[in-house]
Protein backbone atom coordinates (compact mmCIF):
# COMPACT_ATOMS: atom_id res chain seq x y z
CA UNK A 1 0.00 0.00 0.00
CA UNK A 2 1.40 3.37 -0.99
CA UNK A 3 2.37 5.79 1.75
CA UNK A 4 0.54 9.12 1.87
CA UNK A 5 2.50 12.28 1.19
CA UNK A 6 0.04 14.20 3.24
CA UNK A 7 -2.98 13.40 5.40
CA UNK A 8 -5.94 15.75 5.63
CA UNK A 9 -8.81 15.49 8.06
CA UNK A 10 -12.20 16.30 6.55
CA UNK A 11 -15.74 15.64 7.74
CA UNK A 12 -17.27 12.33 6.65
CA UNK A 13 -20.62 12.94 4.91
CA UNK A 14 -21.27 9.60 3.21
CA UNK A 15 -19.56 6.31 4.01
CA UNK A 16 -17.38 4.33 1.62
CA UNK A 17 -13.76 3.80 0.63
CA UNK A 18 -11.96 5.13 -2.42
CA UNK A 19 -8.46 5.01 -3.81
CA UNK A 20 -7.71 6.47 -7.18
CA UNK A 21 -7.25 9.61 -9.21
CA UNK A 22 -8.64 13.08 -8.51
CA UNK A 23 -10.21 15.58 -10.88
CA UNK A 24 -10.18 19.03 -9.33
CA UNK A 25 -12.31 22.05 -10.15
CA UNK A 26 -12.46 25.40 -8.38
CA UNK A 27 -15.99 26.07 -9.68
CA UNK A 28 -19.33 24.95 -8.20
CA UNK A 29 -20.96 22.14 -10.17
CA UNK A 30 -24.50 21.13 -11.09
CA UNK A 31 -24.95 17.52 -12.21
CA UNK A 32 -28.29 18.18 -13.91
CA UNK A 33 -27.32 19.51 -17.34
CA UNK A 34 -23.71 19.42 -16.18
CA UNK A 35 -22.87 15.73 -16.61
CA UNK A 36 -23.54 13.32 -19.47
CA UNK A 37 -24.69 10.19 -17.60
CA UNK A 38 -23.89 7.99 -20.60
CA UNK A 39 -20.18 8.86 -20.58
CA UNK A 40 -19.33 10.59 -17.32
CA UNK A 41 -18.09 13.64 -19.23
CA UNK A 42 -18.82 17.21 -18.05
CA UNK A 43 -21.04 18.95 -20.63
CA UNK A 44 -21.72 22.33 -18.98
CA UNK A 45 -20.11 24.75 -21.45
CA UNK A 46 -19.59 27.33 -18.70
CA UNK A 47 -17.63 24.93 -16.50
CA UNK A 48 -13.84 24.70 -16.38
CA UNK A 49 -14.01 20.90 -16.67
CA UNK A 50 -16.20 20.90 -19.78
CA UNK A 51 -15.16 17.90 -21.89
CA UNK A 52 -13.38 16.15 -19.01
CA UNK A 53 -14.48 12.74 -17.70
CA UNK A 54 -15.13 12.38 -13.97
CA UNK A 55 -16.10 8.73 -14.31
CA UNK A 56 -14.58 6.60 -11.55
CA UNK A 57 -12.58 9.56 -10.20
CA UNK A 58 -12.60 11.43 -6.93
CA UNK A 59 -14.37 14.60 -8.04
CA UNK A 60 -13.20 17.66 -6.12
CA UNK A 61 -15.33 20.82 -6.35
CA UNK A 62 -16.30 23.55 -3.88
CA UNK A 63 -20.05 22.88 -3.66
CA UNK A 64 -22.97 21.64 -5.74
CA UNK A 65 -25.60 23.87 -7.24
CA UNK A 66 -28.60 23.92 -9.47
CA UNK A 67 -31.56 21.68 -9.92
CA UNK A 68 -33.27 19.33 -7.52
CA UNK A 69 -33.17 16.89 -10.44
CA UNK A 70 -29.49 16.29 -9.57
CA UNK A 71 -29.90 12.65 -8.40
CA UNK A 72 -31.79 11.85 -11.59
CA UNK A 73 -28.63 12.39 -13.60
CA UNK A 74 -26.36 11.16 -10.83
CA UNK A 75 -28.15 7.81 -10.43
CA UNK A 76 -28.37 7.34 -14.18
CA UNK A 77 -24.60 7.76 -14.22
CA UNK A 78 -24.27 5.30 -11.32
CA UNK A 79 -26.42 2.80 -13.19
CA UNK A 80 -24.20 3.21 -16.26
CA UNK A 81 -20.99 2.94 -14.24
CA UNK A 82 -20.14 6.53 -15.25
CA UNK A 83 -20.50 8.41 -11.94
CA UNK A 84 -17.61 9.79 -9.92
CA UNK A 85 -16.54 7.22 -7.31
CA UNK A 86 -15.89 9.74 -4.53
CA UNK A 87 -16.52 13.44 -3.85
CA UNK A 88 -14.58 16.08 -1.92
CA UNK A 89 -16.29 19.42 -1.33
CA UNK A 90 -15.55 22.58 0.58
CA UNK A 91 -19.17 22.30 1.70
CA UNK A 92 -21.34 19.33 0.75
CA UNK A 93 -24.86 20.57 0.28
CA UNK A 94 -27.61 18.08 1.19
CA UNK A 95 -28.29 17.57 -2.56
CA UNK A 96 -24.91 15.89 -3.08
CA UNK A 97 -25.20 13.82 0.09
CA UNK A 98 -28.64 12.69 -1.04
CA UNK A 99 -27.10 11.39 -4.27
CA UNK A 100 -24.75 9.11 -2.35
CA UNK A 101 -27.50 7.90 0.01
CA UNK A 102 -29.74 7.05 -2.94
CA UNK A 103 -26.95 5.29 -4.84
CA UNK A 104 -26.41 3.10 -1.81
CA UNK A 105 -30.13 2.50 -1.18
CA UNK A 106 -31.19 1.71 -4.74
CA UNK A 107 -28.02 0.55 -6.52
CA UNK A 108 -25.87 -0.76 -3.65
CA UNK A 109 -22.99 1.47 -4.70
CA UNK A 110 -21.06 3.30 -1.95
CA UNK A 111 -19.74 6.72 -2.98
CA UNK A 112 -17.76 8.32 -0.15
CA UNK A 113 -18.26 12.06 0.32
CA UNK A 114 -16.20 14.30 2.57
CA UNK A 115 -16.18 18.05 3.11
CA UNK A 116 -14.98 20.81 5.38
CA UNK A 117 -11.33 21.03 4.28
CA UNK A 118 -9.89 24.48 4.81
CA UNK A 119 -8.57 26.51 1.88
CA UNK A 120 -4.87 25.48 2.12
CA UNK A 121 -5.96 21.82 2.31
CA UNK A 122 -8.24 22.22 -0.73
CA UNK A 123 -5.38 23.78 -2.63
CA UNK A 124 -3.22 20.73 -1.93
CA UNK A 125 -5.61 18.66 -4.05
CA UNK A 126 -4.40 18.44 -7.64
CA UNK A 127 -5.90 16.89 -10.75
CA UNK A 128 -4.12 13.67 -11.63
CA UNK A 129 -2.87 12.97 -8.11
CA UNK A 130 -3.95 9.79 -6.43
CA UNK A 131 -5.93 9.97 -3.23
CA UNK A 132 -7.32 7.62 -0.60
CA UNK A 133 -10.65 8.63 0.99
CA UNK A 134 -12.56 7.17 3.93
CA UNK A 135 -16.08 8.59 3.78
CA UNK A 136 -16.94 7.42 7.29
CA UNK A 137 -14.01 9.00 9.15
CA UNK A 138 -13.32 11.86 6.74
CA UNK A 139 -9.65 10.92 6.38
CA UNK A 140 -8.10 12.00 3.07
CA UNK A 141 -4.62 10.78 2.12
CA UNK A 142 -2.83 12.36 -0.80
CA UNK A 143 -0.71 9.71 -2.49
CA UNK A 144 0.85 11.80 -5.25
CA UNK A 145 1.37 10.78 -8.83
CA UNK A 146 2.10 7.28 -9.98
CA UNK A 147 4.75 7.21 -12.69
CA UNK A 148 5.99 3.91 -14.09
CA UNK A 149 5.32 2.08 -10.87
CA UNK A 150 7.17 4.53 -8.66
CA UNK A 151 5.83 7.33 -6.52
CA UNK A 152 6.51 10.72 -7.99
CA UNK A 153 6.75 13.61 -5.60
CA UNK A 154 4.48 16.46 -6.52
CA UNK A 155 6.05 19.84 -6.10
CA UNK A 156 4.01 22.13 -3.90
Amino acid at each position, binding site marked *: MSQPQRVLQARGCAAGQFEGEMVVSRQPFGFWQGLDPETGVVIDKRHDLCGVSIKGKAFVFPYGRGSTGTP*GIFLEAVRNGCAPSAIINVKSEPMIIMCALLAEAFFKVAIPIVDGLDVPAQEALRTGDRVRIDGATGRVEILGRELAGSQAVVKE
Partner: protein
Amino acid sequence: MCCGRRMTGGMGENMYLTDEEQGVLDGQRGEPQRLALRVLVKLGEACGAERMVEIASAHLVASSYQIAGEAGIEIYSQLVAQGARVRVRTTSDPGSIDFARWREFKTPEQYAARQVKIAALLDQMGVIPTWTCTPYTTFNVPRFGDHLGWSESSAVVFVNSVIGARTNRLAAYVDLCAALTGRVPCFGLHLSENRRGEILFELTPDLAANFADHYFPALGYLVGQTVGDKVPVIVGLPGATFDQLKAFGAASAASGSVALYHMVGITPEARSLEEACGGRVPAERIVVGQREIAGIMEQMGAAADGPVDVVGIGCPHASIDQMRRYAALLDGKQVHSDTQLWVCTNVVVEEMARKMGYVAIIERAGAKLMVGTCHNDCPLGAWGFRRLVTDSGKFAYYTPTTVGTQCVFASTEACIQAAIAGKVERS
Protein backbone atom coordinates in the same frame (compact mmCIF):
# COMPACT_ATOMS: atom_id res chain seq x y z
CA MET B 1 -39.85 18.62 22.09
CA CYS B 2 -39.81 14.98 21.25
CA CYS B 3 -41.44 11.92 22.73
CA GLY B 4 -39.25 9.41 20.95
CA ARG B 5 -36.43 7.38 22.33
CA ARG B 6 -32.78 7.67 21.63
CA MET B 7 -31.54 4.81 19.57
CA THR B 8 -28.29 3.15 20.41
CA GLY B 9 -25.76 2.09 17.83
CA GLY B 10 -25.89 2.14 14.04
CA MET B 11 -28.88 3.51 12.20
CA GLY B 12 -30.22 6.70 13.71
CA GLU B 13 -27.85 6.80 16.65
CA ASN B 14 -27.72 10.56 16.54
CA MET B 15 -31.43 11.16 16.08
CA TYR B 16 -34.51 10.77 18.22
CA LEU B 17 -37.01 8.50 16.49
CA THR B 18 -40.56 7.76 17.60
CA ASP B 19 -41.66 4.19 18.24
CA GLU B 20 -43.56 4.33 14.97
CA GLU B 21 -40.45 5.44 13.07
CA GLN B 22 -38.40 2.74 14.75
CA GLY B 23 -41.05 0.23 13.68
CA VAL B 24 -40.81 1.43 10.09
CA LEU B 25 -37.03 0.99 10.19
CA ASP B 26 -37.60 -2.52 11.56
CA GLY B 27 -39.70 -3.28 8.49
CA GLN B 28 -43.14 -3.28 10.14
CA ARG B 29 -44.66 -1.26 7.31
CA GLY B 30 -42.97 -3.06 4.48
CA GLU B 31 -39.84 -2.67 2.41
CA PRO B 32 -40.58 0.60 0.56
CA GLN B 33 -41.15 2.52 3.78
CA ARG B 34 -38.16 0.88 5.45
CA LEU B 35 -35.87 1.81 2.58
CA ALA B 36 -37.32 5.32 2.33
CA LEU B 37 -37.03 6.11 6.02
CA ARG B 38 -33.48 4.73 6.08
CA VAL B 39 -32.47 7.27 3.40
CA LEU B 40 -34.19 10.09 5.30
CA VAL B 41 -32.63 9.20 8.66
CA LYS B 42 -29.16 8.99 7.11
CA LEU B 43 -29.75 12.36 5.47
CA GLY B 44 -30.87 13.75 8.82
CA GLU B 45 -27.74 12.44 10.51
CA ALA B 46 -25.48 13.92 7.84
CA CYS B 47 -27.24 17.29 8.16
CA GLY B 48 -27.48 17.46 11.94
CA ALA B 49 -31.23 16.82 12.34
CA GLU B 50 -32.32 15.84 15.85
CA ARG B 51 -35.60 14.24 14.77
CA MET B 52 -38.02 13.72 11.92
CA VAL B 53 -40.99 16.00 11.24
CA GLU B 54 -44.36 15.01 9.73
CA ILE B 55 -45.20 16.66 6.42
CA ALA B 56 -48.47 17.94 4.95
CA SER B 57 -47.58 17.09 1.34
CA ALA B 58 -44.89 16.09 -1.12
CA HIS B 59 -44.02 17.11 -4.69
CA LEU B 60 -41.91 14.92 -6.98
CA VAL B 61 -39.37 16.21 -9.50
CA ALA B 62 -38.25 12.89 -10.99
CA SER B 63 -41.57 12.50 -12.75
CA SER B 64 -39.92 13.45 -16.03
CA TYR B 65 -38.09 10.80 -18.01
CA GLN B 66 -35.37 13.34 -18.77
CA ILE B 67 -34.53 13.48 -15.06
CA ALA B 68 -35.50 9.97 -13.97
CA GLY B 69 -34.12 8.09 -16.95
CA GLU B 70 -33.80 4.32 -16.87
CA ALA B 71 -32.46 4.52 -13.32
CA GLY B 72 -35.74 6.09 -12.23
CA ILE B 73 -37.84 3.49 -14.00
CA GLU B 74 -35.81 0.82 -12.24
CA ILE B 75 -36.33 2.46 -8.85
CA TYR B 76 -40.06 3.07 -9.35
CA SER B 77 -40.62 -0.44 -10.71
CA GLN B 78 -38.89 -1.93 -7.68
CA LEU B 79 -40.96 0.17 -5.27
CA VAL B 80 -44.25 -0.57 -7.05
CA ALA B 81 -43.49 -4.29 -7.04
CA GLN B 82 -43.04 -4.01 -3.28
CA GLY B 83 -46.44 -2.33 -2.93
CA ALA B 84 -45.30 1.28 -2.37
CA ARG B 85 -48.06 3.89 -1.82
CA VAL B 86 -47.66 7.56 -0.92
CA ARG B 87 -48.84 8.46 2.60
CA VAL B 88 -49.44 12.18 2.04
CA ARG B 89 -50.81 14.30 -0.81
CA THR B 90 -48.20 14.06 -3.55
CA THR B 91 -48.08 15.80 -6.94
CA SER B 92 -45.90 15.37 -10.01
CA ASP B 93 -43.56 17.87 -11.69
CA PRO B 94 -43.69 18.32 -15.50
CA GLY B 95 -43.04 15.25 -17.59
CA SER B 96 -40.79 15.03 -20.63
CA ILE B 97 -43.64 14.96 -23.10
CA ASP B 98 -46.88 16.77 -23.76
CA PHE B 99 -49.07 13.68 -23.29
CA ALA B 100 -51.61 14.94 -25.85
CA ARG B 101 -49.28 16.52 -28.44
CA TRP B 102 -45.89 14.81 -28.24
CA ARG B 103 -45.89 13.99 -31.95
CA GLU B 104 -46.30 17.71 -32.75
CA PHE B 105 -43.16 18.39 -30.72
CA LYS B 106 -41.24 15.70 -32.66
CA THR B 107 -40.71 13.59 -29.54
CA PRO B 108 -39.33 10.17 -30.53
CA GLU B 109 -41.97 7.49 -30.02
CA GLN B 110 -39.76 5.32 -27.85
CA TYR B 111 -38.94 8.27 -25.61
CA ALA B 112 -42.63 9.07 -25.19
CA ALA B 113 -43.27 5.43 -24.27
CA ARG B 114 -40.75 5.65 -21.41
CA GLN B 115 -42.51 8.75 -20.06
CA VAL B 116 -45.86 6.94 -20.26
CA LYS B 117 -44.26 4.09 -18.31
CA ILE B 118 -43.21 6.50 -15.54
CA ALA B 119 -46.73 7.94 -15.47
CA ALA B 120 -48.17 4.45 -14.93
CA LEU B 121 -45.71 3.72 -12.11
CA LEU B 122 -46.42 7.00 -10.32
CA ASP B 123 -50.14 6.35 -10.75
CA GLN B 124 -49.74 2.98 -9.04
CA MET B 125 -48.13 4.72 -6.07
CA GLY B 126 -51.04 7.15 -5.76
CA VAL B 127 -49.34 10.31 -7.07
CA ILE B 128 -51.68 13.06 -8.35
CA PRO B 129 -50.68 13.52 -12.03
CA THR B 130 -50.46 17.32 -12.08
CA TRP B 131 -47.39 17.42 -14.38
CA THR B 132 -46.61 20.94 -13.33
CA CYS B 133 -43.89 22.98 -11.63
CA THR B 134 -46.62 25.20 -10.12
CA PRO B 135 -48.65 22.64 -8.09
CA TYR B 136 -49.10 25.32 -5.42
CA THR B 137 -51.77 27.03 -7.53
CA THR B 138 -54.12 24.02 -7.44
CA PHE B 139 -54.27 20.58 -5.83
CA ASN B 140 -51.23 21.01 -3.63
CA VAL B 141 -51.63 24.34 -1.87
CA PRO B 142 -49.60 24.54 1.35
CA ARG B 143 -50.50 26.71 4.31
CA PHE B 144 -48.26 29.05 6.29
CA GLY B 145 -46.07 27.04 8.65
CA ASP B 146 -46.77 23.64 7.05
CA HIS B 147 -43.79 21.30 6.87
CA LEU B 148 -43.40 19.81 3.39
CA GLY B 149 -41.27 17.37 1.45
CA TRP B 150 -40.91 19.09 -1.91
CA SER B 151 -38.37 19.20 -4.68
CA GLU B 152 -38.51 21.28 -7.93
CA SER B 153 -36.39 24.26 -7.06
CA SER B 154 -38.82 26.88 -8.40
CA ALA B 155 -41.72 25.43 -6.39
CA VAL B 156 -39.64 25.06 -3.23
CA VAL B 157 -38.57 28.69 -3.31
CA PHE B 158 -42.17 29.78 -3.95
CA VAL B 159 -43.83 27.87 -1.11
CA ASN B 160 -41.10 28.80 1.37
CA SER B 161 -40.95 32.47 0.45
CA VAL B 162 -44.42 33.48 -0.73
CA ILE B 163 -46.55 31.13 1.39
CA GLY B 164 -44.29 30.68 4.42
CA ALA B 165 -44.44 26.88 4.35
CA ARG B 166 -41.27 25.01 5.30
CA THR B 167 -39.34 22.69 3.03
CA ASN B 168 -35.75 22.05 2.15
CA ARG B 169 -34.83 21.57 -1.51
CA LEU B 170 -35.29 17.84 -1.54
CA ALA B 171 -33.61 15.88 -4.26
CA ALA B 172 -35.28 13.65 -6.81
CA TYR B 173 -36.27 10.32 -5.13
CA VAL B 174 -35.69 11.77 -1.67
CA ASP B 175 -38.98 13.59 -2.31
CA LEU B 176 -40.53 10.16 -2.93
CA CYS B 177 -38.98 8.83 0.29
CA ALA B 178 -40.77 11.72 2.05
CA ALA B 179 -44.03 10.92 0.25
CA LEU B 180 -43.84 7.22 1.17
CA THR B 181 -43.17 7.87 4.86
CA GLY B 182 -44.96 11.21 5.38
CA ARG B 183 -41.82 12.59 7.02
CA VAL B 184 -38.59 14.47 6.46
CA PRO B 185 -35.59 15.03 8.71
CA CYS B 186 -35.99 18.27 10.65
CA PHE B 187 -33.08 20.50 9.64
CA GLY B 188 -32.39 23.52 7.45
CA LEU B 189 -35.47 25.53 6.54
CA HIS B 190 -37.75 23.54 8.84
CA LEU B 191 -36.12 25.45 11.72
CA SER B 192 -36.89 29.15 12.31
CA GLU B 193 -33.26 30.07 13.00
CA ASN B 194 -32.28 29.05 9.46
CA ARG B 195 -35.00 31.14 7.84
CA ARG B 196 -33.50 34.51 8.77
CA GLY B 197 -32.28 36.76 5.99
CA GLU B 198 -28.50 36.84 5.60
CA ILE B 199 -27.71 39.06 2.64
CA LEU B 200 -29.47 42.34 2.03
CA PHE B 201 -30.23 43.64 -1.47
CA GLU B 202 -31.26 47.25 -1.48
CA LEU B 203 -32.82 48.70 -4.63
CA THR B 204 -31.92 52.25 -5.49
CA PRO B 205 -34.99 54.55 -5.47
CA ASP B 206 -34.48 55.15 -9.19
CA LEU B 207 -34.62 51.42 -9.98
CA ALA B 208 -37.52 50.78 -7.61
CA ALA B 209 -39.55 53.55 -9.22
CA ASN B 210 -39.02 52.12 -12.71
CA PHE B 211 -39.14 48.43 -11.93
CA ALA B 212 -40.37 46.70 -15.10
CA ASP B 213 -42.09 43.30 -15.09
CA HIS B 214 -39.09 41.48 -16.58
CA TYR B 215 -36.76 42.93 -13.96
CA PHE B 216 -38.16 40.36 -11.52
CA PRO B 217 -36.51 37.35 -13.18
CA ALA B 218 -33.41 39.49 -13.85
CA LEU B 219 -33.12 40.49 -10.20
CA GLY B 220 -33.75 36.87 -9.18
CA TYR B 221 -30.93 35.75 -11.47
CA LEU B 222 -28.58 38.35 -10.00
CA VAL B 223 -29.55 37.48 -6.42
CA GLY B 224 -29.13 33.72 -6.99
CA GLN B 225 -25.76 34.20 -8.60
CA THR B 226 -24.62 36.36 -5.69
CA VAL B 227 -25.90 34.44 -2.65
CA GLY B 228 -25.64 30.77 -3.66
CA ASP B 229 -27.73 28.98 -1.02
CA LYS B 230 -27.95 31.81 1.52
CA VAL B 231 -31.21 33.61 2.36
CA PRO B 232 -31.48 36.95 0.56
CA VAL B 233 -33.63 39.88 1.68
CA ILE B 234 -34.82 42.40 -0.88
CA VAL B 235 -35.71 45.88 0.24
CA GLY B 236 -37.22 48.71 -1.77
CA LEU B 237 -39.72 47.00 -4.05
CA PRO B 238 -43.07 48.76 -3.97
CA GLY B 239 -44.98 45.55 -4.71
CA ALA B 240 -45.04 42.32 -6.70
CA THR B 241 -47.69 40.13 -8.29
CA PHE B 242 -48.01 36.38 -7.76
CA ASP B 243 -46.43 35.75 -11.18
CA GLN B 244 -43.60 38.21 -10.58
CA LEU B 245 -42.72 36.45 -7.32
CA LYS B 246 -42.85 33.13 -9.18
CA ALA B 247 -40.48 34.45 -11.88
CA PHE B 248 -38.08 36.00 -9.38
CA GLY B 249 -37.83 32.84 -7.29
CA ALA B 250 -37.41 30.48 -10.24
CA ALA B 251 -34.51 32.55 -11.58
CA SER B 252 -32.81 32.74 -8.17
CA ALA B 253 -33.17 28.98 -7.67
CA ALA B 254 -31.62 28.30 -11.10
CA SER B 255 -28.65 30.67 -11.11
CA GLY B 256 -28.03 29.92 -7.42
CA SER B 257 -29.58 27.50 -4.97
CA VAL B 258 -31.96 29.94 -3.31
CA ALA B 259 -34.68 28.05 -1.42
CA LEU B 260 -36.07 31.00 0.54
CA TYR B 261 -36.08 34.73 0.03
CA HIS B 262 -37.72 37.59 1.83
CA MET B 263 -39.10 40.74 0.24
CA VAL B 264 -39.77 43.31 2.90
CA GLY B 265 -43.42 44.35 2.98
CA ILE B 266 -44.34 41.66 0.44
CA THR B 267 -43.61 38.14 1.70
CA PRO B 268 -45.17 36.82 4.93
CA GLU B 269 -42.07 36.39 7.08
CA ALA B 270 -40.81 39.87 6.20
CA ARG B 271 -43.34 42.40 7.45
CA SER B 272 -40.30 44.46 8.42
CA LEU B 273 -36.58 44.28 7.68
CA GLU B 274 -36.02 43.36 11.31
CA GLU B 275 -38.42 40.43 11.09
CA ALA B 276 -36.88 39.24 7.82
CA CYS B 277 -33.43 39.15 9.42
CA GLY B 278 -34.66 37.71 12.72
CA GLY B 279 -33.28 40.69 14.59
CA ARG B 280 -29.74 40.15 13.32
CA VAL B 281 -27.71 42.47 11.16
CA PRO B 282 -27.30 41.05 7.62
CA ALA B 283 -23.80 39.83 6.88
CA GLU B 284 -23.65 41.80 3.65
CA ARG B 285 -25.45 44.70 2.02
CA ILE B 286 -25.60 45.02 -1.76
CA VAL B 287 -27.02 47.98 -3.63
CA VAL B 288 -28.77 47.22 -6.92
CA GLY B 289 -29.43 49.96 -9.43
CA GLN B 290 -30.26 50.29 -13.14
CA ARG B 291 -26.67 49.53 -14.09
CA GLU B 292 -26.64 46.20 -12.21
CA ILE B 293 -29.97 45.12 -13.74
CA ALA B 294 -28.77 46.03 -17.23
CA GLY B 295 -25.55 44.12 -16.59
CA ILE B 296 -27.28 40.94 -15.48
CA MET B 297 -29.71 41.03 -18.43
CA GLU B 298 -26.74 41.29 -20.74
CA GLN B 299 -25.31 38.18 -19.10
CA MET B 300 -28.61 36.27 -19.23
CA GLY B 301 -29.00 36.67 -22.92
CA ALA B 302 -27.17 39.29 -24.78
CA ALA B 303 -27.38 38.74 -28.50
CA ALA B 304 -27.08 40.79 -31.60
CA ASP B 305 -30.10 41.37 -33.81
CA GLY B 306 -31.01 38.38 -35.87
CA PRO B 307 -33.38 35.52 -36.60
CA VAL B 308 -35.07 33.50 -33.86
CA ASP B 309 -36.02 29.81 -34.08
CA VAL B 310 -38.00 29.37 -30.92
CA VAL B 311 -39.63 31.48 -28.26
CA GLY B 312 -40.31 30.06 -24.80
CA ILE B 313 -42.79 31.60 -22.41
CA GLY B 314 -44.56 30.06 -19.42
CA CYS B 315 -41.57 29.05 -17.29
CA PRO B 316 -42.56 28.38 -14.54
CA HIS B 317 -45.89 27.19 -15.98
CA ALA B 318 -48.13 30.07 -17.02
CA SER B 319 -51.03 31.12 -14.83
CA ILE B 320 -54.44 32.10 -16.17
CA ASP B 321 -53.42 35.77 -15.78
CA GLN B 322 -50.42 35.17 -18.01
CA MET B 323 -52.55 33.30 -20.56
CA ARG B 324 -54.85 36.32 -20.73
CA ARG B 325 -51.83 38.54 -21.30
CA TYR B 326 -50.42 36.30 -24.06
CA ALA B 327 -53.83 36.19 -25.76
CA ALA B 328 -54.11 39.97 -25.68
CA LEU B 329 -50.65 40.34 -27.24
CA LEU B 330 -51.34 37.72 -29.92
CA ASP B 331 -54.89 38.67 -30.79
CA GLY B 332 -55.11 39.16 -34.56
CA LYS B 333 -51.37 38.61 -35.03
CA GLN B 334 -49.44 35.81 -36.73
CA VAL B 335 -46.31 34.07 -35.50
CA HIS B 336 -43.57 34.14 -38.15
CA SER B 337 -43.43 31.02 -40.33
CA ASP B 338 -39.77 30.33 -39.43
CA THR B 339 -40.34 30.69 -35.69
CA GLN B 340 -41.98 28.53 -33.04
CA LEU B 341 -43.77 30.20 -30.13
CA TRP B 342 -44.46 27.68 -27.38
CA VAL B 343 -46.49 28.53 -24.30
CA CYS B 344 -45.84 26.19 -21.37
CA THR B 345 -48.57 25.56 -18.84
CA ASN B 346 -50.45 22.82 -17.02
CA VAL B 347 -53.66 21.03 -17.90
CA VAL B 348 -55.76 22.96 -15.37
CA VAL B 349 -54.78 26.36 -16.73
CA GLU B 350 -55.10 25.05 -20.29
CA GLU B 351 -58.69 23.99 -19.65
CA MET B 352 -59.62 27.28 -18.02
CA ALA B 353 -57.90 29.26 -20.77
CA ARG B 354 -59.83 27.24 -23.33
CA LYS B 355 -63.12 28.03 -21.63
CA MET B 356 -62.19 31.70 -21.60
CA GLY B 357 -61.28 31.77 -25.29
CA TYR B 358 -57.54 32.44 -24.79
CA VAL B 359 -56.44 29.11 -26.25
CA ALA B 360 -58.34 29.80 -29.47
CA ILE B 361 -56.63 33.19 -29.84
CA ILE B 362 -53.18 31.82 -29.05
CA GLU B 363 -53.53 28.88 -31.44
CA ARG B 364 -55.08 30.98 -34.19
CA ALA B 365 -51.94 33.15 -34.07
CA GLY B 366 -49.85 30.05 -34.79
CA ALA B 367 -48.44 29.58 -31.29
CA LYS B 368 -48.48 26.16 -29.64
CA LEU B 369 -49.50 25.19 -26.14
CA MET B 370 -46.98 22.90 -24.50
CA VAL B 371 -48.90 21.27 -21.66
CA GLY B 372 -47.47 19.36 -18.71
CA THR B 373 -43.89 19.83 -19.87
CA CYS B 374 -41.57 22.59 -21.16
CA HIS B 375 -38.63 23.34 -23.47
CA ASN B 376 -36.19 22.24 -20.77
CA ASP B 377 -37.80 18.87 -20.08
CA CYS B 378 -38.52 17.77 -23.66
CA PRO B 379 -36.02 16.29 -26.10
CA LEU B 380 -35.84 18.95 -28.84
CA GLY B 381 -32.83 17.73 -30.79
CA ALA B 382 -34.93 17.05 -33.90
CA TRP B 383 -35.73 20.75 -34.23
CA GLY B 384 -32.15 21.95 -34.61
CA PHE B 385 -32.87 25.18 -32.79
CA ARG B 386 -30.06 27.71 -32.64
CA ARG B 387 -31.57 30.71 -30.95
CA LEU B 388 -34.18 30.94 -28.22
CA VAL B 389 -35.87 34.01 -26.84
CA THR B 390 -37.43 33.82 -23.39
CA ASP B 391 -38.80 35.94 -20.57
CA SER B 392 -37.77 33.32 -18.01
CA GLY B 393 -34.62 33.54 -15.90
CA LYS B 394 -34.73 29.77 -15.43
CA PHE B 395 -34.91 29.10 -19.17
CA ALA B 396 -32.14 31.64 -19.69
CA TYR B 397 -29.96 29.70 -17.27
CA TYR B 398 -30.67 26.17 -18.54
CA THR B 399 -31.51 26.30 -22.25
CA PRO B 400 -27.98 26.89 -23.53
CA THR B 401 -27.34 23.34 -22.25
CA THR B 402 -30.77 21.67 -22.47
CA VAL B 403 -31.74 22.90 -25.91
CA GLY B 404 -28.25 23.80 -27.04
CA THR B 405 -29.27 27.26 -28.20
CA GLN B 406 -28.05 30.74 -27.80
CA CYS B 407 -30.40 32.58 -25.50
CA VAL B 408 -31.91 36.04 -25.60
CA PHE B 409 -33.60 37.26 -22.45
CA ALA B 410 -36.40 39.78 -22.98
CA SER B 411 -39.72 40.98 -21.59
CA THR B 412 -42.88 38.99 -22.32
CA GLU B 413 -43.96 41.65 -24.81
CA ALA B 414 -40.60 41.57 -26.57
CA CYS B 415 -40.69 37.75 -26.68
CA ILE B 416 -44.03 37.75 -28.42
CA GLN B 417 -42.91 40.56 -30.71
CA ALA B 418 -39.85 38.49 -31.65
CA ALA B 419 -42.08 35.50 -32.43
CA ILE B 420 -44.21 37.62 -34.73
CA ALA B 421 -41.25 39.28 -36.42
CA GLY B 422 -39.19 36.06 -36.53
CA LYS B 423 -36.22 38.03 -35.29
CA VAL B 424 -34.88 40.08 -32.43
CA GLU B 425 -34.74 43.79 -32.91
CA ARG B 426 -32.93 45.24 -29.98
CA SER B 427 -33.66 48.86 -29.38
